[in-house]
């Protein structure tokens, strides 16, 4: 009898601890200034819910440039704009690319999140089709946007679902029971930090050989297709889009990108996105070499300048409180 009671107590306590953890995470886990590298589907769902309750005026979609690679979350252009009164939300993430932006757009609109404006970071580097990386969905986005994936998307994109159905089911069950399990990657990044600590290697232009695919861009490019679809989806929802060409370190990359092919691709993107109703700002050459950490990632000073460049447009779009 004593052992049965002990077992019942142990079980009750374990269940109680899980409940308390779930409640504590719901109540106290912060809304981070930016998504963590391995953000979870659970965290993003929570963010969508909070955005549905009080929709931010401007959403930022993009990749590691806007996310703030190698700088703190409070040093990014979006955080700076937020501190200046913009109700902005940075949904860019380290492995962001046009397919991810598109499915995030679908998820947000489906959940009823209608911002006043969307800012899109258009980085020519992520349109490089020779790298699978830029056609890969983030696991959390892939999990949440499963219902939006067409057979063509499944054929074109790399979708990191678990091969093993048992593991996937187990993951789903555990995630539904414990928020600690579901949001483990976000908790870990929050506790231990999410900024690269290793010193930046000495910059060498040759490292970036092949980063920019100089083949002429067209609508057959997977990235371009999803970029256009993202702009069109927001436009159909009545949300204005500001697309900016990612600032690029021309001094460093001179021998690779200061040529007619690269310029033609920039012009193509400006034309295509404008024709779909986006306001496009070309910041490709707008920054000095010392404002870059490498080919495109900005220093804290560079992020401050990016914020200053975007600020007038946010004013005109009425995105300032």
């Amino acid at each position: 009898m004593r052992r049965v009671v002990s077992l019942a107590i142990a079980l009750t306590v374990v269940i109680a601890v899980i409940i308390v953890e779930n409640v504590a995470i719901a109540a106290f886990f912060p809304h981070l200034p930016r998504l963590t590298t391995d953000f979870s589907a659970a965290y993003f769902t929570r963010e969508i819910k909070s955005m549905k309750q009080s929709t931010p005026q401007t959403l930022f979609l993009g990749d590691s440039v806007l996310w703030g690679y190698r700088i703190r979350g409070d040093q990014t252009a979006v955080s700076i704009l937020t501190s200046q009164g913009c109700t902005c939300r940075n949904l860019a993430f380290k492995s962001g690319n046009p397919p991810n932006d598109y499915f995030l757009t679908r998820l947000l609109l489906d959940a009823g999140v209608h911002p006043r404006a969307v800012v899109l970071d258009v980085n020519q580097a992520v349109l490089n089709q020779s790298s699978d990386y830029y056609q890969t969905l983030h696991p959390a986005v892939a999990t949440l946007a499963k219902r939006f994936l067409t057979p063509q998307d499944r054929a074109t994109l790399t979708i990191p679902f678990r091969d093993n159905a048992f593991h996937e089911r187990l993951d789903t069950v555990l995630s539904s029971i414990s928020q600690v399990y579901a949001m483990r990657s976000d908790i870990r990044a929050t506790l231990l930090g999410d900024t690269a600590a290793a010193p930046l290697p000495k910059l060498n232009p040759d490292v970036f050989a092949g980063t920019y695919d100089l083949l002429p861009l067209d609508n057959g490019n997977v990235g371009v297709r999803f970029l256009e679809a993202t702009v069109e989806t927001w436009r159909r929802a009545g949300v204005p889009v500001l697309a900016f060409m990612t600032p690029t370190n021309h001094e460093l990359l001179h021998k690779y990108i200061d040529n007619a092919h690269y310029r033609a691709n920039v012009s193509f993107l400006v034309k295509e996105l404008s024709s779909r109703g986006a306001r496009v700002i070309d910041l490709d050459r707008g920054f000095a070499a010392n404002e870059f950490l490498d080919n495109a990632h900005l220093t804290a000073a560079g992020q401050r300048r990016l914020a200053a460049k975007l600020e007038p447009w946010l004013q005109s779009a009425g995105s300032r409180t």
Partner: protein
Amino acid sequence: MDVPSYYFLGFAALVALAINLSSAPQWRRCLLLATNIAFIVTFTHSAAELMPFAGLLLLGYAAVKAMERWPHRALFIVFLITLIFAFCWLKRYSFIPAALWLAHPYFLVGMSYVFFRILHLVIDAYQDALPDRVGLLSYVNYTLNFTALVSGPIQLYRDYLRTESQEPAVLSASAMGEALIRIIAGLFKITIVSPLLYLAEQRCLQNLPLLAVPFERAFDAALMLAIFPVYIYFNFSGYMDAVIGVARFLRLELPENFNRPFLSKGFIEFWSRWHMTLSHWIKTYVYSPLLLALMRRFPVRSLEQWFGVFAYFVAFFLIGVWHGRTPSFIVLGILFGLGVSINKLYQIAMIGGLGRGPYTRLCENQAYGALSRGLTFGWFAVASLFFWATLPQVSHFAKVLGALELMTTLLMVVVGAAALLSALEAIETFFGRMQTRLVIWGYVRTAWYSALAALSVSAAIALNAPAPHIIYRAF
């Protein structure tokens, strides 16, 4: 395989199931041998990596057998020096020229602990103090016992042999419950308490140069100084709890290594409660022989207590030096040695001045006891600084703080520790009383450890990392 990871626990669970199939000594010995070897193999990539360690083991076994057969002083000294040199050479102590070190990587995990076990066998064999002739199987199992390989404890051969094959410990339901509780407590200390303390200590370290207000700087430095010993305690004693619990499922009994060390009222007492098996080893094989040798060489009664002070210094200096190979560890050794010898000198002076009775009564005084605890903790905290910081770092801290802030920092550590440790003792006394009075205490305990188990698993999930790092693994 990291200890105590969940893989380690799974591995140990399988061994426990197998070993409990039979109580036959040969079955237990053979299975333990296979397990110990399998455990070591998980750390290595090739057999060549194991050769230097195997060489040390073989040398040790040859020394034990030689001492059993020919217990001559000269031969004993030759073996002792050879073993010590082999150990220092394999551990790459800086006094050995780097050109003599082995160039290829090799297995070193737990070598210090194995070395202590080998020396214990050789010395006891020479003194004919071993219970029996040491068989090869028992020798290998004793020195490489997988539950105690990585970071100890340093068990005596006689005690090991008793539960290995002579009288395996009884594994009743309540013994299993107690063992489980030890494992849970260990995991909780390692996965939750110790990483949090480490983070706190690192934060203090990062903040120190950024703080402008002198009081804030002193407070930050005091926290940094005070957190580290507590962090090591939770990390190391957590490991001990886990391996003691695991060994119990194999019907092995490992000795305790910690007994609420921060409640000690003096540095000598501290070392009888902190890393107990190491300090016991050092007292048995360094302190006592040295003291006896001095007393025999200079048989003057009035000098005996001074010899005691000196022997204490040497023994605990060696403990400090054993912790590492850089000059900081020499300072650590000096501080450990000074701690015990000053404590001994103080006792001599107080007993001489006040008399034994009044001094004992003074020690029983609560305020005096609290202050003694604060001073003991403070001394250990300052010594521990040399455990984790290099000499230039320590000098940088001193420069950042300046003399006045440094004094304030030390005062804060001593007074803070005195107050907090007294409160801790009061809480402990309260729970001790509850334990005897409360009928449902057993259920409260079950609930408490169930909560700790759930939290430890959650922490492991959230951190999603390999097993936590055990500081003492490096030794």
